[in-house]
């Protein structure tokens, strides 16, 4: 099980060919209180860096991009009525969608946790 990170502050945790996607604590910090998540449609095919879905916060609306290429197989409906779960647990219960990853080799374009942490430190 490996977790990878994008420069746009998404994470993907890969187990076999299934990837769980969410946004990072840094993203949540920047967005402030999240008020709405437009979950992706089940079965949606997404390409790496393509738009997966969008989030709205008290400050702004932002797009969320797919960390890897694949197909959406599950979404976190708990977020429909309680998007604040993403604020409370961005890398846990606040996951957004699961996807069947088509091409794991795309992970070479992503960062591991220590690289991502360093990347975020550089943004401060």
């Amino acid at each position: 099980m490996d977790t990878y990170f994008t420069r746009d502050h998404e994470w993907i945790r890969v187990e076999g060919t299934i990837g769980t996607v969410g946004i990072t604590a840094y993203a949540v910090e920047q967005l402030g209180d999240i008020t709405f998540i437009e979950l992706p449609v089940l079965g949606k095919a997404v390409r790496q860096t393509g738009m997966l879905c969008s989030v709205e916060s008290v400050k702004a609306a932002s797009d969320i991009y797919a960390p890897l290429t694949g197909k959406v197989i599950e979404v976190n409906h708990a977020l429909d009525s309680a998007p604040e779960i993403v604020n409370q647990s961005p890398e846990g219960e606040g996951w957004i969608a699961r996807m069947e990853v088509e091409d794991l080799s795309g992970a070479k374009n992503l960062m591991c946790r220590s690289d991502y942490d360093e990347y975020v430190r550089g943004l401060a």
Partner: protein
Amino acid sequence: MEELKKTPLVQQHERLGAQMAPFGGWLMPIQYESILAEHRWCRESAALFDTSHMGELLFSGDLVGSGMDSLFTFRISSIAIGRCRYGFLLNDAGGVVDDLTVYRLSEDEAMIVVNAGPADKDFSVLEAALAGRGLLENATGRTGKLDLQGPRSREVLTALAGPEIGEIPFFGFRRFNVLGAQVLVSRTGYTGELGYELYFEKDRLQELWQRLLADDRVRPAGLGARDLLRLEMGYSLYGNDLDESTTPLEAGLERFVDFSRGFIGREALLSQQSKGLSRVRVAFRVSSRRTPRHGYRIFHQGEPVGEVTSGAFSPMLGCGIGLGYVRPSAAACGTLLEIRHEAVVLEATVVELPFYRQGSLRV
């Protein structure tokens, strides 16, 4: 670019972990931990806002003889001493130069509390209109201002200043001695809750801020929460919902205009009234949790009819809410609107204000 003015509390805000941002030419706290948590604390207990950025203009002189009485959309001389009133300073075209609150301090003295952004402009307009008749001082630089708002604000202030706090009527004010400082306390605010605005000499700001925050019932709130609180009440934000190209008639605020006497912009308003309005302010509720935002376009039956001027997710209503300007034909209560921005389409319904009706404002 002009350098940002800083509230004297900037260090206190930063120590509390505030995110600071420019507002009206000032560097102000937007949020501490969470806009939604600060909003909730104001609706349930008492929130403390640093509002030092707002402008205070002091007038002294003969209200009628100086012409001061015929500058605003209401007569200052008709306000009882110890009371305040909300209204407008307009331009000749009837556009809003600023929305403001005037405090009648004495027979021949008034304090005009104005928005931060237009404060200098307001001062120039008034100074030019008075042309030396009466004294006008821009006291913003020497005035500290804090707002304490929320259902428990009265208890908190009573503990500090005594039971007379409970005797201040809605839109009234009195002077108190707090920690040895002279503090003017008015029962006014921008949140829809029971609340007070405190004015005092600026050098007491740190002390009063600390003292109020030492009360467990009080937590600091930033301008983000303040914006959400005011929008749930449908109060206008100058620069968003009101500006020099908008008249009080278009904004649905004619109840703050006294047409029975002369004031700047009166002829333009009367002319607009007789010709009919081409756009009016509406309040609307979105059918989902999505947020309409400033600048999003409003459609009715497929036709573009206007634009959103303020919007937010309302925690109290559990949906998106907003204000905007539309053609009068799309402004009736119950009218279905579509709000569009890029690929986003929100369904909304025109409603009456306020959005939120359970506040402690008049308790």
